[in-house]
């Protein structure tokens, strides 16, 4: 048995490199697998009503009407030859708002909104959202909930 040598510079440097490589590989593996696991949990396909949908023919909505579409939770607002689409999802905590004399009213915690979706009272922090309305090739109103627009933006037919 040779007596134990105190670790020389080169051996401690080697063990440092080994440690560094070992830990980096482990950290990388951990990061990659947790990243993959989180990504796995973000669904790529949704079976809920599409965010882009056909709301119906323009003439289905009488002049001056505000029509509630249940499945999509939106109102289609027609004035003359202009069309707009207003979200019925309260900006407070996501309840479905209904019509009121003022405009719209949320039953959950009493937020109220005017005809333009602006907050008139209650805890809602933001105005109701307006969505982009276009006309599809087969002349249906096409709403895209991914695309938010100003209240002043109309589809004119």
């Amino acid at each position: 048995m040779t007596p134990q040598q105190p670790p020389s510079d080169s051996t401690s440097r080697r063990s440092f490199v080994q440690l560094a490589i070992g830990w980096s590989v482990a950290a990388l593996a951990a990061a990659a697998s947790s990243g993959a696991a989180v990504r796995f949990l973000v669904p790529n396909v949704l079976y809920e009503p599409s965010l882009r949908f056909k709301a119906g023919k323009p003439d289905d909505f009488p002049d001056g009407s505000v029509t509630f579409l249940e499945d999509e939770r939106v109102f289609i607002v027609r004035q003359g030859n202009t069309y707009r689409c207003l979200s019925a999802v309260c900006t407070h905590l996501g309840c479905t708002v209904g019509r009121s004399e003022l405009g719209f009213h949320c039953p959950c915690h009493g937020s109220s909104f005017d005809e333009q979706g602006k907050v008139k009272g209650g805890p809602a922090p933001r105005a109701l959202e307006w969505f982009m309305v276009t006309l599809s090739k087969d002349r249906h109103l096409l709403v895209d909930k991914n695309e938010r627009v100003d209240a002043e933006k109309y589809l004119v037919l």
Partner: protein
Amino acid sequence: MKAWKWFEGSRVGRSVFRVGIPRSNLERAQAMVSSFLLHVQPAKVNRRTLRPATTLGLGLISLYLLGILTVTGILLMFYYVPATDRAYDAMKDLQYVVSAGLVIRNMHRWAAHLMVLFVMLHLCRVFYTGAYKRPREFNWLVGIALFLLTLGLSFTGYLLPWDQLAFWAITVGANIAAYAPVVGPELKFLILGGNSVGQEALIRFYTLHVIVLPALMAFMVSVHLWRVRKDGGLARPEEGADRLERIDVEHLPTNKSYGLMELTRSTSLQVGKNPEDEVFSWPHLVFREMLLLLAVIAVVLFLAVFWNAPLEEVANAIHPPNPAKAPWYFLGLQELVSYSAFWGGVVAPAVLVTALVMLPYLDRQAVGAGRWFARERRLANTVFTIFLIIAVVLTVIGSVFRGPNWGWVKPWAQPPAVTEGH
């Protein structure tokens, strides 16, 4: 009795129970050490541990409730189907068709509410007795994880009946999450597995509720109880662990070989313990624990037999109830959210949890551990009490003083006619 004596003495009996019913002090110690279920606890405990006033048994009650929840929850799983078109029917079946289904569902629901309550009370007990102080800081952290897990389990379980209450409580809860800075909307999408509460959300909550969170809970509870043991049992006033801090190392007797070992916190050495204060766990501790278990089961059963867990109409995404309320333990938050969603829904809970996490590291002075409302801790106790009162007041307001449109109601007056928004 004779038959039992014969069984205990038989080969099979001895192989199962080893010690049998202890008849001597030696056997009393052996009974604790040789049984898997009992060895979690020491063979002897301090007299203080047995006094109800020491812990009020709150941690133990939480543990028992967790046990009841596990058993009844597994039973419910035999009938429950996590599908939006079947979940509600499964609940109705449990209530009206399945034998004993109603009582088991009621037990699960009432035990869940009680568990949230008792975990909170246990947290308060640990605070007011200063039991989170060194060396128990880490167990306090484990406790906070348990508290959050308890809330998580209750919240995920809330959605499963798929009735109006469930649907809108989860909608409101998930939208509180959406106010988190930067990742809020993404977080909500991840929780719900989509943009709104639907089938994807149901299966997610179900998976979390029946396997992910219970598994984490089982692990953390094991760590928690193990730590209670490793930290030398329950926190005791000064003559216990705290005395170690004050031993001046220079004055330690050097002629004794265990002089330095006296400084260890290991449970094998009876450091700082007066043998006079120690009693055998069997039967003194075990008996009291079993008695408490019986009492907890009795109370839950009593509630379950006389009061039915609520089940409203089937979930309806178009007609929110007025008012839509989160589960009671979140109503304080919801009350805050009704003033400001960001401050109430994000900042307040974040600050609260951070403060709880940092507490044992900020409040480092050792005095006052193991005593209720120690005078030396007047400042800490006052601050905590103020927060507690605020939380209770907000919760009470949110629960009973808020009616339709989140407007003020007097709970003792006639319930106002609910006007639907549609």
